[in-house]
């Protein structure tokens, strides 16, 4: 009998919730340990799946398909391809880092870790679900823990940020749900299977494809977030506790990009192509506007949040290139952005927990005081701004190549996106200059350098950023076949 590995990956954190519920309130240390162990279990399983995975196959693998509500064609249907497994890897890894970074939480510990584990299940589930209803369930259950994690353990304006996050994403997902239903009834094959509906969606007339595509677009664009739906992101990031920011930037934003790969593009290629001119402009607005706003930030965390908006623009830009280089670049950027921005948020959290400030003007001279922390920040900023040799470069480079190669896009878009790298370098280097160099800031008097515990969860990220930067084929090989497959499906 084959093990239901994908279910094990998805529901291991839920098992952790059950165990935690048995631990009495107040035994905080035990709760932290148990939660961390259970949050790491999915990663262990994912690594095992990696060893068994056939990276040359186009088909979905590790399929689990059990009838759920047969009358209406709902299945408990899970399966993964190269795209899912790459994102599962990031999710599993960042979940552990986020758990470790959460050990500093002192208030309502039991509830906190319960919600974190619940969030992990939701995120993992989205990447393995192949039935629309199952997909939507996982998609939506990430909302509730996020609301509470921001609302209870967040900063001063936490309630506003939490409700804003909830409203935006719920609006997006309700429209997506209506699109799912429209797709289901329009296809009329009594199936909610994502892969089966690929074929059906393509056959719809353009006039039918467009409204359904727009419904999905609303759901995905809010998550990415694409301008003008992005305003919830800076608020949520600034107020969220560190670990939640890490998962928000590292994984939750990727759900939107993943939605394009898994659903919007293969199901509605004609509608997608129809909107390419719009999407390319929106992607560039994200990239350039995000960078400019990041430059103007005085709060370190807000700066990273806006840089996320800018970087996520590249993902959308790669998609609209509609060729292998572009899509590969998008995927690469998703993984790389998860690692680099996840790490940036970890570092900002570390700085904040020591200095109780995130204002750039109150920091300064970290290089002399805390060389390791400053070094990690500098390294990660370099990776984020796309220094060759680090992972950020490859993703953006491939996206640009994709745009240049795309016959339907004017090369000027690539030029604009490329010029933006200068802006990115501008705000990140300027930030480094103000934070790490110069006079030692007021609040830095008693700052201490990275502890062994913190190094333990930062080093794996540093290694991966270097590894994927120097040897990108390693990562590209994981999803390249699946990306090609998506393109073949889109081509008919």
């Amino acid at each position, binding site marked *: 009998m084959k093990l239901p590995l994908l279910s094990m990956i998805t529901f291991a954190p839920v098992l952790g919730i059950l165990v935690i519920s048995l631990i009495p309130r107040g035994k905080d240390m035990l709760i932290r340990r148990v939660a961390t162990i259970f949050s790491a279990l999915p990663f262990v399983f994912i690594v095992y799946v990696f060893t068994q995975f056939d990276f040359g196959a186009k088909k979905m693998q590790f399929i689990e398909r059990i009838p759920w*509500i*047969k*009358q*209406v064609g709902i299945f408990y249907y899970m399966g993964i391809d190269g795209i899912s497994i790459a994102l599962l890897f990031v999710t599993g890894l960042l979940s552990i880092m986020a758990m470790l970074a959460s050990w500093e939480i002192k208030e*309502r510990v039991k*509830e906190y870790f319960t919600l974190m584990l619940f969030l992990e299940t939701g995120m993992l589930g989205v990447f393995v679900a192949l039935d629309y*209803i199952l997909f*939507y*369930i996982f998609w*939506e*259950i990430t*909302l*509730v823990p996020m*609301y*509470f994690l921001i*609302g*209870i353990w967040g900063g001063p304006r*936490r*309630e506003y940020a939490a*409700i804003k996050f*909830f*409203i935006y994403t*719920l*609006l997006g997902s*309700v*429209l997506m*749900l*209506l699109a799912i*239903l*429209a797709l*289901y*009834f329009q296809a009329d094959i009594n199936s909610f299977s994502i892969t089966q509906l690929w074929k059906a969606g393509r056959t719809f007339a353009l006039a039918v494809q467009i409204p359904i595509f727009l419904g999905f677009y609303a759901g995905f664009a809010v998550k990415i977030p694409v301008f003008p739906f992005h305003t919830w992101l800076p608020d949520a990031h600034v107020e969220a506790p560190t670990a939640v920011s890490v998962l928000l930037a590292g994984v939750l934003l990727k759900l939107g990009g993943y939605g394009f790969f898994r659903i919007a593009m293969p199901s509605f290629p004609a509608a997608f192509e129809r909107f390419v001119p719009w999407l390319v402009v929106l992607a560039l607005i994200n990239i350039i506007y995000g960078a400019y706003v990041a430059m103007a930030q005085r709060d370190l965390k807000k700066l990273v949040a806006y840089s996320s908006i800018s970087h996520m623009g590249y993902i959308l830009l790669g998609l609209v290139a509609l060729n292998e280089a572009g899509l590969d670049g998008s995927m690469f950027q998703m993984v790389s952005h998860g690692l680099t921005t996840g790490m940036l948020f970890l570092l900002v959290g570390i700085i904040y927990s020591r200095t109780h400030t995130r204002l750039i003007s109150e920091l300064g001279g970290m290089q002399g005081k805390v060389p390791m922390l400053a070094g990690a920040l500098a390294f990660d900023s370099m990776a984020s701004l796309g220094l060759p040799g680090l992972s950020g470069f490859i993703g953006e480079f491939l996206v640009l190549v994709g745009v240049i190669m795309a016959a339907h896009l004017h090369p000027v878009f690539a030029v604009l996106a490329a010029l933006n790298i200068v802006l990115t370098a501008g705000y990140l280097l300027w930030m480094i200059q103000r934070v790490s160099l110069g006079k030692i800031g007021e609040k830095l008097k008693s700052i201490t350098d990275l502890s062994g515990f913190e190094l333990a969860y930062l080093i794996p990220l540093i290694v991966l950023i270097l590894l994927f930067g120097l040897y990108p084929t390693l990562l590209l090989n994981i999803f390249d076949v699946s990306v090609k497959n998506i393109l073949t499906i889109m081509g008919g």
Partner: protein
Amino acid sequence: MHLHLELVAPEIVIAALAIATLSLDLIIPKNQRAFIPYLSILGLGGALVISIMQIGNWGMALNKAFASDPLTAFVRIASIGLILLVILASLRSSTSVGREGEYYGLLLFSLLGALVMAASADLITLYLGLELSALPAYVLVAFQKHRLKSGEAALKYFLIGLFASLMLVYGMSLVFGFTGEIEFKAIAKHLKEGQDALILAIFLLLGGFGFKITAFPFHFWAPDAYDGASAPIAAYLAAILKLAAFAAVLRVFLWALPAVQADWKIWFAVLAYVTMTAGNLMALPQKNIKRLLAYSSISQAGYALIGLGTTTQLAFGYMLFFIFTYMIGTVGAFLVVAACSTRREADEIDDYKGLAQRNPLLALSMLIFLLSLIGIPPLAGFMGKLFLFGAAIEGGKLGLALAGGINTVISMGYYVRIMKVIYLDKPKEPTFPRIPASLRWGVYLAAFATIAVGIFYGPFLDLSRQAGRLF
């Protein structure tokens, strides 16, 4: 005469139980009546088992006055299942203690009326059921004699209910006058299009039923009545009586008046739009939790009306399923309200501050009910909305589905506000008073049902689809 009493077995059991309960009140001394509710639970459990066993055994009973069909079965199972929770919540509550005979007797009579109304196949049976369900309900609202609000609410509810009944009777008499028939399906045969005065009958029926299902603008009594009643009774009004009224609407409009469908179809769509929107907008500023839940139940009735507005068999079926999921969430929420007001009345939303720290399990249950009412998967309410909106799309009513979706987002505003107060705010007092075990387990049972129905909804969906195909 074709009585077919076996098809009416659950109703007979409930009728016997109601009479027995009321009579025991006369014989048993006041301090020994505590067993009465347990007797009711036992009897209702029996009725529930019979109802489930009778699935598939369809037919007309009581000389074609009573239809035992999938709709009847659906209403029976949903209503009896949920009234058990209402009874669990009422055990040991100060409202019913010492007056068990009256309280449970009235509740059972009202339930009997609701079931008869939902199963009626002619106008007379319908009206009998309607009145039998309503009259005890007026008394139940007034049951908290020491509360000023209770009497006031009961009087309002009574007068408005009376008005609604009169509208219905007048409408029915017009229908009877035109056709000379009381049986729904016979009426349909004699009904011809183009009779102008029938429009009046349709409007009277729409208005009368509008009151019963709290459709805007006939909704205004609900917040007062729910606020004045004890929380378990409010749950009963919001859930069981509403389901029965929806079932009756299906029977009257689809069985008796299909010939003039063009005249009433559009109005259900209009009612759906305005009811869900108005209910949600009015719920937003509420400060009292019972009034908030009342407006929530109005808006949920608006979603349910999408089913009637779509007017396809699939939509009717999924509407019933949606109402069932709504009932679980609403009854659960009212049970939590009952639990929070056991010691002293604490119905202001501010009284729920920090409930998560005072009583985590109660808070978690409330969270589950609220999320289900919003429609967050994988809870029951999500599945309800999923299929209902799906049926609207299938029936080509994109506007209704979209309005339902947007209203879902609006409704989040007030549901999340309660969640915020419970989880994010600091408690005023650290401890929570002890609540009766039966009430506590009633809440947990409802929370469990909310999750279980969200995952294993197949049998309910089947039955509701069968019910939808009757029309």
